[in-house]
Every structure is written in C-alpha cells, then in structure tokens.
C-alpha cells in the first residue's frame, strides 16, 4: 500500500510537498513502531522477571522487593571480626564516600573507610536507614544445577520425549491415512463424517473423561503411558484437517499416472503423496511434540503417584507444590520447562505459524 500512496504524492509535482509527506510518514512509522516495541516489551517482561528471580537466593528476593531488581549482594567489610555492610554516605563537602557501618545509631552513626581503616571512625549525622547500600552483582547460577538435580531433569526429559515421539508416530500414521481418505476417496456420508470430525474440536473433553478413565482403570492402564499414547493412534481433528488441506492442493495427475502404472492406493500414498508433503508432516510433528511437552491434564490424572513415569510438566508441578516458598526454584524450573518448546518454535516458526493459520482461517 505504501507504493500506491507515494506514487500519488509524486504526481502532485512539488518536491517539498513530497518530502513533507515522507517525513510525516516516517514520523508516524517511528511512533507506531515504538509503541508496538513497548507493548511487546511489556508482554515479554515476565520472562525477564523469571530469569532474574531464578538466579537469586531467598535473601536477594526479599531485598529486591524494595531495592534493586538485579541479583545483588551488599559489599561488606570485616571490622573487629564482624561483617558490616558498606553504604554510600553523602559527606558534608558534597562527595559521596563508600563507608562501612560499624555502629548504628538513630541520630548519627559511626563509619569506617575500608580503604583507609587506620584513619579511624567517621561519625555521620543522619539516619543510616536512608543510605543506599553499595552492591555488586552476585547471581546464584547454582540454582539451575540444584533444580536440575532435584527435579531429576534428565529423567523428566527422557519421559517427555519418549511420550512425545511415540505420539508423533501414532498421530502421523493415523492422521495421514484419514486425511488421505478425505482428500482422495469417495466415502459414504463424507460430508457428515467430516463435519463430525471437525466438531470434535469443540467438544468439552470432560464429558468423555470419566468413562475413559474408568475403563483405563479397569484394564490396568492407569499408572502407565498407554492412556497418553494409544488415543493418538486414532487420528486427531486438527491434524487431519491440516493434512487434508495440503493433500487437496497436490495435483491429482501424479496419483493418476502412478495408478496407470499399476500402483495401489497405499503405494500412491507412500511414494507419491508423502514425498510431496514434508512441510505439512513436519508441521504436524512439531505441533504434536509441543503439545505433548506442554500437556498437563492427562498426565496429571493418569500418572498420579508414578514419579518415574511423569513428564516435565508434572515433574515441575510436584516439585513446586512441595517447595512453594522458594520462588527462585520455581522460576528456575519454569524456565527449564519452557526452554525446549520455545527453542523449537524459534527454529521452525515459519512452519509453525503457517500451520496455525491454515487450521484457523480456512475452516
């Protein structure tokens, strides 16, 4: 649209008018972009909060409620065998000196200069509570190794990836087959079936939950991965829709040529359709991996009391239900939980967002 506007302006003739318009446009552009950047920053601020909190300890968190948001410690000085804090003290001559507080008083306090301890005590008039402490960055990186060990991160990742990858295999095999049927074959009541498939998207899952759970409990599946895996071998509406839309765009001539060469429907699927469909297959796989990584409800009910089988979401939850009073550990584990899906997203954002758009807009 920008080119259309500028064309029309140049037709006006005067260069200065054109220049004014460009300047105005640049001004609006800067404002809109700045506003959006601030909005985005606000939207993403919680990540910075989490990152900074995750490398603090309990005392730093308490201190940061009032003071610096960074993980900092106050510098100290050992005076007569005692650790005392160093403060920024404004002197009568206008200079600010960094002095260690050795004797606290309400009206006046005694300080000592750590750089010149021999000079003796300095008395300062005023309330020491108004003074700013001298601080240095002291991030507690060790929170991450601690969290890693305490939640048994390798086990959780192994469980989660195993559940995710088996699920990917299941959903790919079944959804590709079903999408192929909807895209290429005559079916009785095809429209009704497809409508039914899509309407399962808006079915509240609770209505099927209890009997499903009851049956799983009866056949001994509760407490195993099977409830998290087996249903994915029976196709899923989103994936079928996504795959079907893609298959419909593939030219039928290739299928027909293969058919004339004597290839059966399965052969055509494997050697003609699938080789042309890698982008959408990758998208479905990524969606499923992220889904499985983030899934919370199903493992919550089916893997209760099985600490060796749980995926990362439940691992983080169990750990933090027990350590509710340690905000730094909560944030460290939260970041460990989101690192993988966010990384996958950044690496494959194009594929990802295109898949979302197809399922959302074309329905």
């Amino acid at each position, binding site marked *: *649209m920008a080119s259309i506007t500028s064309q029309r302006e140049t037709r006006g003739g005067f260069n200065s008018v054109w220049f004014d318009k460009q300047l105005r446009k640049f001004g609006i552009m800067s404002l809109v972009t700045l506003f959006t950047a601030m909005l*985005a920053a606000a939207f993403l601020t919680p990540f910075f909060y989490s990152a900074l909190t995750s490398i603090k300890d309990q005392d730093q968190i*308490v201190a940061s409620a009032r003071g610096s948001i960074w993980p900092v410690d106050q510098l100290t000085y050992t005076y007569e065998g005692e650790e005392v804090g160093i403060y920024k003290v404004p002197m009568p001559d206008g200079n600010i000196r960094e002095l260690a507080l050795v004797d606290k008083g309400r009206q006046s306090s005694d300080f000592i200069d750590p750089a010149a301890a021999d000079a003796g005590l300095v008395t300062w008039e005023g309330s020491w509570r108004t003074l700013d402490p001298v601080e240095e960055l002291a991030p507690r990186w060790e929170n991450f190794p601690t969290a890693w060990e305490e939640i048994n991160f390798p086990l959780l990742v192994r469980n989660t990836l195993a559940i995710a990858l088996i699920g990917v295999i299941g959903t790919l095999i079944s959804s590709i087959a079903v999408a192929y049927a909807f895209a290429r074959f005559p079916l009785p009541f095809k429209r009704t079936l497809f409508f039914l498939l899509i309407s399962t998207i808006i079915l509240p899952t609770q209505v099927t939950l209890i009997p499903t*759970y009851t049956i799983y409990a009866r056949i001994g599946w509760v407490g195993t991965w099977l409830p998290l895996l087996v249903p994915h071998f029976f196709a899923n509406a989103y994936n079928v829709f996504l795959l079907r839309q893609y298959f419909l765009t593939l030219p039928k001539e290739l299928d027909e040529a293969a058919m004339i060469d004597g290839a059966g429907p399965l052969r055509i699927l494997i050697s003609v359709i699938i080789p042309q469909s890698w982008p959408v297959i990758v998208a479905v796989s990524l969606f499923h991996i992220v889904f499985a990584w983030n899934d919370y409800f199903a493992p919550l009910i089916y893997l209760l009391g099985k600490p060796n089988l749980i995926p990362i979401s439940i691992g983080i939850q169990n750990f933090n239900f027990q350590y509710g009073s340690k905000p730094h550990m909560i944030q460290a584990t939260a970041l460990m939980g989101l690192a993988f899906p966010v990384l996958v997203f950044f690496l494959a954002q194009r594929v990802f967002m295109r898949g*979302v758009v197809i399922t959302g807009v074309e329905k």
Partner: protein
Amino acid sequence: MSTSQQSSPFAVGAADSPPAVGGAGSLHRSRQIWGLIFVSPWIIGFLAFTLFPMVASLVLSFTDYNLNEPDQINWIGLENFQELLYVDPLVGTSLIATLKFALIALPLSIILPIAIAALLNSPYLAGKRIFRTLFYMPYIVPLISGVYIWQGMLNSETGWINRLLAEIGIMGPNWLNDVNWIYPALNIIGLWGIGNAFLITLASMQGVPTELYEAARVDGANPWRRFRSITIPMISPVIFYNLVLSLIGLFRYFEIPYILSQGTGEPGQSTMFFTIHLYKQAFVFKEMGYGSALAWVLFVLAFIATFILFLSARYWVYYSNEEF
C-alpha cells in the same frame, strides 16, 4: 469447512475407467473400500474415545458408581441431578465463578486479538515479522511454566506488577489472594494464550482485498470507518471462530486456576471453577457417578451456549461464499 474441492463420488471412476458396463461401478466400489480402510482409524477412535464414553457417562450419571467400591454400582435415577441442583452448594459457586471470569475473558478474547492484529497489520509498522513472532511466542510456553512465571509477577510483595504500580504511586492489590482481584489476575495470565487467535485474525486481515479499501478511500471513508465497515465484516468468520473457541475454553477452563490454587479453589472459593469441582468429585473422591452428572450438565450448558452462538452467526458473520 468447504468441501467444494472434492470431486463428486463418481468423478474418478467415470473419468478413468473404460466405458464398459459395470467397470466404473466396481472401480468406484473398490475406491470406496480403500477410503473406508484409510478413514477407519478415525472412525474407530471416534466410536471408542468419543461416542462410547459420552453415552457411558450419561449412563453413569444415573448411578452411584464410586471407583473406591467398583463392585457396588446402583441405579439411582435422577438423584445425582437432584443433588447437583438443590443440595451441592459448589455447583452454584462454580457457575458464578465461571460467569465472573467470563465477563472479562470473553470481551477480551474478541477485542485483543483484533487490536493486536490491526496493529501488526499497520502499513506504518516496521519489523512486522519480528513482532508477530514475539507476540505469538508466549503461546508456546507450557502452561505450568507460564502460570508460575505470572504467579511471581503478580506476587503482591515481590512481583513486578505491583512494583511498577508503586513507581507511579499506586498501591497494587493482592492479585492472587483477593476474591475480587483474582479474576483480573486470571485474565492477565490468560493474555499469554492469545497467540493463535491474533495470528489467524492477522492472516484473515491480510486476506481482505485491497480494492475494497481503495474504493472506500475514494468515497472519503476515514481509517476508522474503513476498519469498521470493511475489515470487521470481512474478518467476521475468524472473529466467530475465535469466539467459539473462547466459549468452549471457558467451559474447559481448568489448568490455570488449578495450578495457582493447587486445586483448593482459593482465595475463598473464587477459583472453584466447574471443572475443578468436577475433577475433585471424580478423581479425588472417586465419585464417578456424580462426576458424570456434572460432566453432562457441563456438556449441555456448553452445547446450548455454542448453539446460540451459531444461531447468532447469521446476523453478524459474513461469508463471501455461501457454502457453510
């Protein structure tokens, strides 16, 4: 949901087979059988994981089935529903909680995706791709991580929201422990979930034909007028789709309040949403019969709400091709 691209059932057979009598029919039948084979995973799955459990939960809702005593199952008629309507105080509480939450959540779920999409669609915005990625990204964050991060942000003592409010001289509320502020807080946490909604709204906006805007500009329509009279009607199918998903999301709403309150429904009983009540009855107290009754009430309510929404669609949703 258009199926127009599919050929009619006879097209393949008629085109490819020799004109011999019966040849087209048998090829068609063979393709139909193959089609049924390929579609069977979903049909079996639908029967086993959707239809059968739905019917079974309806049947269970008329029993006193408890998983702790799985061998004693009695038909108790409408007792569960009577209990639910007249005795159980948490049913009313949880429905009111859902309603209070919805009063903020539903308008937000319509306005925010449109606002962000409109901003990202602006011709005056530089770096669109980056912003689109950044605004979408939180959607990928696991719920468990997102809730913990926001729980920290909203902490009344150490959280950054109240710290920021304090900078401008406002004493921030105790977001997560105040029965009045918990609903705004839940909605703030929910902001990270708008990725999908704004992304498809944006894609839909980009699909609006530019001739329409040009024509309106010639007619002297200002930007706001163009947005209201062209953009909104043209993207109304996507608004509708988002609204349906938000509505269903309300009835399913579970994870965020569950993680926040560890299932207690605190503060007060403000986060005792219907699904949490259902979860506790079914999976803590193992009352599968009563839980099924709750689930069916939820299903019927969700169905009615969705149905009304679908009925309303003809008055405000614009479909350029009348195929829906």
